[in-house]
């Protein structure tokens, strides 16, 4: 860092530097003033609303996508369940019929046991 930097950073005062540096400093400060004016930016109300709309729309899209994925999963699950219903019914039917057969077997076994006992 040289004298010029120290002057700009407030580590030295104008009295402490050479004439050349002082002159450069004054020119530089003037440029900075103009630069500041050039960089000034006043945001509009329209932009404020636009950003808020865009942000809300993005959130809505994200929520929509998540809901869509969730709905798809539910749909696939229900669809799978529905398609697999006939076999399920078959099992149910078999379960209903099985007792009839087992009842007969049970009856025969009981008869056998009784006959064995006798």
């Amino acid at each position, binding site marked *: 860092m040289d004298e010029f930097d120290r002057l700009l950073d407030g580590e030295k005062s104008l009295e402490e530097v050479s004439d050349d540096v002082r002159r450069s400093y004054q020119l530089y400060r003037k440029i900075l003033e*103009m630069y500041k004016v050039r960089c000034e*930016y006043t945001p509009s109300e329209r*932009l404020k609303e636009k*950003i808020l709309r865009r942000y809300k729309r993005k959130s809505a899209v994200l929520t929509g996508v998540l809901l869509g994925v969730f709905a798809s999963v539910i749909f696939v699950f229900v669809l799978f369940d529905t398609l697999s219903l006939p076999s399920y019914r078959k099992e149910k039917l078999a379960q209903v019929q099985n007792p009839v057969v087992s009842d007969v077997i049970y009856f025969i076994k009981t008869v056998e046991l009784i006959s064995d006992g006798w």
Partner: protein
Amino acid sequence: MNEKLLIDALKKRQNWAYEVLYREYAPKIGSIAKSFLNSDDVDDVVQDVIIRVLKGIKKFRGDSKLSTWIYRITVNVCKDYLQRYKRRNEVFTDFQEGEEDEYYLQPKSGEDILKDSLLEITAERVRMALEKLSPEDRLLIKLRDVDDLSYEEIANILQKPVGTIKSRLHYARQRLRKILEEGEENG
């Protein structure tokens, strides 16, 4: 405005927090974008930065000041834009014609002989001088000499060591000085 309160409200998506964020930070974001990009896309940059802030605020841990974090996002967004410009190889015009006349410097009474040379500094010369600087140089000068941010804060924003920032700023100032002095000699 209490920063913590603002951050909490932003996390809860309260409308008043957005109002405050926009009012406090949009001018600063726009100003940095103007100095860095030298283009007309300032509104787009402001929009992108604020959207990123709103989306990322839940992850903001508060390791740095809110302003530092927002400035860092701004610089990153500006860098993205610069990359886009380079890809498109666009040539940007700076400020609109006709604005120059408004910025002619006026001498103040009691000033020394410097005023004669200062009078000759027009907005056009400033524009040309600044255009000769790289975006990074302009940004450093803007953050330190115009916005008066500390070296530590600038280092945090640009994620570079303080020593690097000091050194780069020194060279940026030297370059601007040289350009201005050359302009004076030629003009």
